[in-house]
């Protein structure tokens, strides 16, 4: 009933409707910081469990002598992650490789939600009375920031683990600008501290914004393409052209988007490893 009730009147309303998450407390203001995006939570959780289930099954049945083709495919991903981690991260921590694997596969799965027809899940959800649904969790800034800030925080912890708390703090205020004399060192403390804060902050922000921006824009383009066919007013040349345009443009964008989906997940994974690697390296 809500689907009927909230059917978009025009293109602007359609887009705006699609840009809103399903909030736990709809009564609150859409930008209220205490709210929770239920769609992001549930979809990311289900996809996370899909990742854990698939990889867990393969790990449980992993055979050394007679791997199945699917096991080999999973091993391909593992090797990709492991090779990069071994090349970039020279610390002792055994956490970075599983972290990178989780980031890569989870982000690929969440990004891949973009391939579902843009209105499919929201329409189905609407039939069950769910008013709003954003199907791509990585297009939600909360998801991106949650991962990027976790990664940056973890890189700080790895740095402390590798250099000790004192060593980490000393480095925080003596790098990137080095000085020889004690006086110069003291003078440079605020400069270095500020630089480090900016560095860590920009790492977290850029990591999140790159992913979310790409996925958000990709989703938006799918919506715009979906608008082409939405102006259907009967079998007239304009409508037919629009529908045709939707099919052609939608296919083209989906194919191009495959690249973006994999590439963004790969970049996120690589930067995760790089940040962890930088944290444990001596400056």
């Amino acid at each position, binding site marked *: 009933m809500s689907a009927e009730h909230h059917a978009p009147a025009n293109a602007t309303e359609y887009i705006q409707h699609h840009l809103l998450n399903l909030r736990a407390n709809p009564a609150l203001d859409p930008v209220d910081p205490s709210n929770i995006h239920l769609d992001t939570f549930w979809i990311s959780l289900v996809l996370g469990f899909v990742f854990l289930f698939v990889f867990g099954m393969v790990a449980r049945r992993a055979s*050394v002598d007679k791997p199945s083709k699917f096991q080999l495919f999973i091993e391909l991903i593992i090797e990709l992650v492991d090779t990069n981690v071994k090349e970039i991260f020279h610390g002792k921590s055994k956490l970075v490789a599983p972290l990178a694997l989780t980031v890569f596969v*989870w982000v690929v799965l969440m990004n891949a939600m973009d391939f579902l027809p843009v209105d499919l899940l929201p329409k189905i959800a609407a039939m069950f009375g769910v008013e709003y649904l954003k199907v791509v969790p990585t297009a939600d800034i909360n998801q991106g920031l*949650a991962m990027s800030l976790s990664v940056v925080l973890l890189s700080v912890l790895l740095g402390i683990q590798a250099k000790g708390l004192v060593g980490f703090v000393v480095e925080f205020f003596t790098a990137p600008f080095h000085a020889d004399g004690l006086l110069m060192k003291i003078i440079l403390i605020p400069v270095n501290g500020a630089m480090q804060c900016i560095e860590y902050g920009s790492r977290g922000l850029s990591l999140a914004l790159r992913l979310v921006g790409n996925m958000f824009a990709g989703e938006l383009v799918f919506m715009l393409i979906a608008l082409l066919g939405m102006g259907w007013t009967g079998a007239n040349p304009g409508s037919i052209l629009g529908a045709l345009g939707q099919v052609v443009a939608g296919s083209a964008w989906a194919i191009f988007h495959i690249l973006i989906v994999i590439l963004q997940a790969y970049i996120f994974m690589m930067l995760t490893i790089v940040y962890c690697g930088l944290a444990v390296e001596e400056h």
Partner: protein
Amino acid sequence: MNINASLFLQALVFAVLVLVTWKFIWPPLMATLDERAKRISDGLTAADRAKHDLELAEKRAAEELRKAKAQASEIIAQAEKRATQIVDEAKDAARVEGDRLIAGAKSEVDQQVHHAKEELRQQVSALAVAGAEKILRKEIDAARHADLLATLKAEL
């Protein structure tokens, strides 16, 4: 693009996923890969060793074959030598035996001749005595001239 409490919720989900992957998924999969890599390198090493062993065995077999051939030809040579030796020995023995037989026959013949001569001598002396007896019947007493006759007999 509104930031809210979802940030923490998603961070929590992320942490759980990473934790489970770290504890339960990464180690067995990595162990499988490491084990396979180890088996492959072991297999290659074993193949190399087997190849080396095969070369050694082939060399040893060739050596053994060569030795056996040498031994066989040596045995054959010895056997041939022995055979000619046996034949020679047999020839020698036969010659010796023949000589012995010939010598025996000769001595037999000599004996016979001697015996015949002895007999003839007896007979001749008897004839001579008989002849002389007849001639000298009247004047010669056999008993008186016995020693003379014996001397005569010995001279014949």
